[in-house]
């Protein structure tokens, strides 16, 4: 461990050290060039994955840092999406107002759902959030204001004078917001708030003893996490041009949980990695047969032994197995694997450095 990591004031800096600044600049440059390098139809995929990353950041704060489970984040995402669309169609609000409105309304519902969470631990909370997610889709599926099962068409949006149409303009908006939120989530993690979250995760009673206001921080964690999902929902409605209750199903909530588990609970890097992978899996599920090599093989297997129409379900099987194997073999997820690789590299380097002198002496 270097001394920098033990220094609190260095820890809470927005960008700790030169290396972090360089990394961020390189990342931003890559992200800025990316849409002009990849083929046009891939930009949609990137946007979709970025939206998953936003939800993943929120899930990371709630599940990874605070240790609370949510099986209802698709519900918060739905609330964000519908708020955003209704604000534009019913109130004539511009997208610049609709987006924060989506975040606020979702956050409010997160706050409400967080209230019972104060008195409950894991199992009960999981059940309550499960019920929440299902209730949201039920209500938007039956309310006439929400377009029922047919859903709603999203109106044309613009950002001031800039029209928000086409994948590239969506890309810069979505990825820009994703980067800002990722930095925000990282900074929340290293400050007083983030440490309070983790103290609650590790032992609520010990946290309370040390003066952490458990009720306040648990609710806050729910609220922030729901706001992230609400923003993601609003952006999803923008890029899809259409929303319906079927999009925000219970299985999507499970996928959101799966991505932070697979990426690594309690790590922002892990959450981003996991969300990218799961976002990709989720999008590719509908066109498995188009994946090179593996796709046709799965299609043949499916035709022979399974049902040809059920092929997209491979994605669920894969997701389920991925999180089970993660918990069984590497509970820290992808991030844990990365830490092990780093350790191994460091060990190899040290060995080759000392090994060189050893053979020289021998």
């Amino acid at each position, binding site marked *: 461990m270097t001394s920098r990591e033990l220094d609190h004031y260095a820890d809470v800096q927005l960008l700790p050290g030169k290396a972090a600044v360089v990394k961020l600049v390189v990342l931003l440059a890559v992200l800025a060039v990316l849409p002009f390098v990849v083929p046009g139809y891939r930009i949609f995929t990137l946007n979709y994955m970025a939206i998953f990353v936003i939800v993943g950041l929120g899930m990371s704060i709630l*599940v990874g840092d605070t*240790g609370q*489970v949510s*099986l209802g984040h698709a519900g918060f995402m739905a609330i964000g999406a519908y708020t955003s669309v209704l604000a534009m169609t019913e109130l004539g609000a511009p997208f610049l107002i609709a987006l924060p409105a989506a975040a606020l309304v979702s956050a409010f519902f997160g706050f409400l759902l967080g*209230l*019972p969470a104060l*008195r*409950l*631990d*894991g*199992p*009960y909370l*999981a*059940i*309550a959030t*499960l*019920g*929440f997610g*299902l*209730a949201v889709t*039920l*209500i938007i599926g*039956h309310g006439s204001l929400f377009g029922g099962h047919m859903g709603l068409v999203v109106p044309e949006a613009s950002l001031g004078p800039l029209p928000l149409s086409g994948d590239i303009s969506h890309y810069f908006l979505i990825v820009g917001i994703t980067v800002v939120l990722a930095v925000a989530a990282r900074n929340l993690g290293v400050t007083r708030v983030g440490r309070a979250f983790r103290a609650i995760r590790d032992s609520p*009673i010990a946290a309370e003893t040390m003066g952490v206001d458990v009720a306040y921080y648990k609710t806050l964690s729910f609220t922030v996490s729901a706001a992230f999902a609400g923003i993601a929902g609003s952006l999803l409605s923008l890029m899809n041009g259409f929303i319906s209750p079927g999009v925000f199903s*219970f*299985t999507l909530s*499970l996928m959101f*949980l*799966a991505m932070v*588990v697979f990426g690594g*609970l309690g790590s922002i890097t892990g959450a981003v990695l996991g969300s990218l992978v799961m976002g990709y899996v989720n999008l590719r599920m509908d066109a498995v047969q188009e994946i090179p090599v593996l796709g046709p093989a799965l299609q043949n297997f*499916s035709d022979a032994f*399974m*049902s040809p*129409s*059920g*092929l*997209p*379900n*491979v*994605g*669920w*099987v*894969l*997701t*389920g*197995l*991925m*999180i*089970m194997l993660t*918990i*069984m*073999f590497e*509970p820290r997820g992808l991030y844990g694997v990365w830490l092990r690789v780093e350790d191994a590299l460091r060990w190899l380097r040290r060995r080759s450095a000392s090994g060189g002198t050893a053979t020289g002496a021998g």
Partner: protein
Amino acid sequence: MLLQIVASGLSSGSIYALVALALVITYKTTEVPNFAQGEMAMFSAFVAYVLIVDYNVGFVVAFGAAIVFAFLLGVGFEGLFLRRTKNPTHLNLIIMTLGFQLALFGLAGWRWGADQRQFPFPVSASEVVRFGDITVSTLSLATISIALVLMAAVFAFFRFTKLGVAMQATQQDPMAARINGVPVRAVVALTFGISSVIGLVAALLTAPLITLDPTLMWDPLLKGFAGAVLGGMNTPVGAVLGGYLLGVVENLFGAYVSVEFKSAVAFLIIVIVLWFRPVGLFGRQPPRKV
């Protein structure tokens, strides 16, 4: 009118009560709600369906085979997956059950597609029996009686057999049970097996009401959880009563308030109970462990 509503509420309540019972007996053993419960039951029901429709096996034989399958699925899930969790915190175990749920959901969807299938149940849902003013379908009658018989059998098993008492001992204190010679591992696996079979029966009673597809148990699972929370997750009898109560309350809500939002009652009840009395109507506050 009111009696009629209560009667049909008891019929759906029977299914919720069975699911609640299945959930609670494993919850008491491991302190983890088994979210895969519904999908395990759905998958086992599909096994029965395939035997009957594709292989022309009689219902009774298919039912027996499905029971064996469900039992092995429960035992296998506990022994091969849950028990092997490296760091068995509540969160990690819950995630294991969710992973298993997703995998089974995907597997069923992959194998049997999204087609809606009619489940060939030997009792008809359209024939009715009259008791004075009340009409009840024979299926409802069968549901209510099968649930009662099964639950009586389960409670008798817990109360009067050596194995049942060993299971209760394990639920109360695994360490003390082990010291007293209870093979705790085998008993935990057995609990999951029995729970899975109870779930299967609930699924077989649900399938003829709607169509058989991979989402078959989503709704009953939520209702089972709601019933269990309402009655108390730590009391099997309370959970069963909670299931029946939910069935009746939900039906009353459907008749007098809104049919469309009937399913939201379960969520409302969960939130209200957890807010005012987290241990449920019939539960007792367990001592808080540090």
